[in-house]
């Protein structure tokens, strides 16, 4: 496919920066092993995804892919004193920006209030489990300029500052992400399970989540 390269671009870039953080966090090294074993077998999907990332690291030194062009909002955030990492565009043409979790809250306020951005509507918060790290993707929408933006924030120690104070929508969306992924949103007024029962153990959307009940294991093949 012609656009395969374009889409591949953000992937190594997103791996670059959080790699250091992931190493510091370190809790997930144990899971890396089964995925390496899985790399030999073609069947398991999740393992394959990890395998695709692994060989990307040595390649990088040989042919470093050109860093994606910073889009208008990455430039804007840069101007405002943040250090966004542009990730190019997704398949629908939406700009994607990676933000550090430490400056995320301030950047969110800036994106909402700045006259050039005006992202007043938080469309969704999605957690993504990349096996070595947890990531939250914030999709923003502006009811003034009708533009769209994706913010990606990697959890540090499974923690991300909550943006409920910026967008009230985040209340339920963050609760859902916490419920399914276990990302703790610091500063959330009421971080409880929302979809799963309150006494549920574990966070089901994680890739390493195992169903203990033998009757449910059919889903794991």
């Amino acid at each position, binding site marked *: *496919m*012609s*656009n*395969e390269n374009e*889409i*591949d671009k953000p*992937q190594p870039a997103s791996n670059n920066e959080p790699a250091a953080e992931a190493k510091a966090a370190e809790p997930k090294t144990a899971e890396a092993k089964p995925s390496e074993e899985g790399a030999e077998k073609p069947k398991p*999907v*999740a393992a*394959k*995804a990890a395998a*695709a990332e692994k060989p990307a690291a040595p390649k990088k030194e040989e042919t470093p892919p050109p860093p994606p062009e910073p889009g208008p909002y990455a430039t804007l955030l840069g101007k405002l004193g943040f250090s966004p990492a542009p990730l190019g565009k*997704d*398949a*629908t043409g*939406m700009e994607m920006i990676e933000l550090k979790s430490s400056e995320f809250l301030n950047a969110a306020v800036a994106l909402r209030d700045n006259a050039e951005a005006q992202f*007043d*509507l*938080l*469309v*969704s918060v*999605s957690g*993504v*489990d990349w096996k070595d790290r947890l990531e939250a*993707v914030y*999709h923003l*929408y502006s*009811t003034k300029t*009708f533009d*769209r933006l*994706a913010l990606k924030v990697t959890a540090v120690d499974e923690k991300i500052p909550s943006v409920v104070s910026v*967008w*009230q*929508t985040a*209340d*339920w*969306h963050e609760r*859902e992400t916490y419920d*399914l992924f276990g990302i703790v949103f610091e500063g959330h007024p009421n971080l409880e*399970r*929302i*979809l*799963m*029962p309150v006494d549920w153990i574990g966070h*089901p*959307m994680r*890739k390493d989540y195992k169903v203990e009940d033998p009757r449910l294991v059919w*889903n*794991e*093949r």
Partner: protein
Amino acid sequence: MATTITPPETAQGVYFEKDIDTNDMVVNIGPQHPSTHGVLRLITTLDGELVKSMEPVIGYLHRSKEKMAESRSLFQYQPTIDRVEYLSSFFDHYVFVSNVEKICDIQVPKRVQYIRMITMELNRITSHLLWFGTFLLDLGATSPMFYAFRDREKIFKLFEDLTGARMMYNYYRFGGVIADMPEGWLDKVRLVIDDLPKRFDEYEALVNKNPIFLDRTIGVGYLDPQQAIQYGVTGPTLRGSGIALDQRKTNPYLCYDEVEFDVPVGKNGDCYDRYKIRVQEMRESIRIIRQCIEKMPGGDTAELNRRRKAGDEDALNNPDYQITGKKINLITFKPNKGEAFTTVESPRGFLGCYMITDGTPKAYRVKWRGASFSNLSILPPLMEGRLFPDLMAIFGSIDVILPEVDR
């Protein structure tokens, strides 16, 4: 009440205190309740008939649609999408299929795009019709529901002709649709949509001048536009507050930039405006469908087939007239690596699907952004300080469907 009522020993339940007149009453509305439209639980604190606070509890219909996507190939996952939101499942299918098309860079033929537009707009009408019936049922009027269901049935007949199913369509495919329209289907659609505006007039005549209906909706449930955006409310509920945010206009997808239609916008932000807007939207949908039928590339299937039999080169080979943009073997189909987030204007607002693919047949991550999920979160602030019966008017007017909330 100055005197203290002491209930008999047997009547002292969990919430019954001896001083019953000094306590607020906590009513647990749902999960099984006639007007929660599914399984929603609302922990409501009542002071007499006044709602002091309300806390929605969701998750009773959680079916792990997102987790399911990780254990099935994209094609295997597709039939289950219908159940994400079963009242307007064409929209769910569209966002899912559109994500894959964009990630894999599949060009969609014009004819398919128009078929999708017709089906989606018809689906919007069925969804709004159901809403119309149940909204009035919540207010205590029993008859309108039957009228609405009668008309909904006509459209379901059309869907049955087209897809073979009445509610769970599974009609769209990556790059196209599963089969072309049956011969003469467009004429059937035309018949139905010629009839519907008369019906809408009838409904409005029945409802709009009813003083009790006006009393119960006008000025009830005022939603401030800024508050609505803060809470992520979208769709007709947001437009009722005066913000003309319709993705078909602002971020046109499919061929919505080629058809003319208006976006009805309310002024007062109350239940009545939301009701008006939905009825008006059904009329606009009919306008869109009418234009789509006229502009349909290749016209009716009967016409197209005749031309193809006659050996018309254009009819045979024009990429616009095909029903799929790319021949895909769905069994071995592997999407490219990438991610996409498509949102469309569903009958309830922004319906989004966030998809990350990693080159395997399965999606690495699928996230559904249901409009109802965010719309429901506005309910507690709207209900505070209102009367208990207003709950039905307000909850009905924001049009929540629970499978979309819980996914």
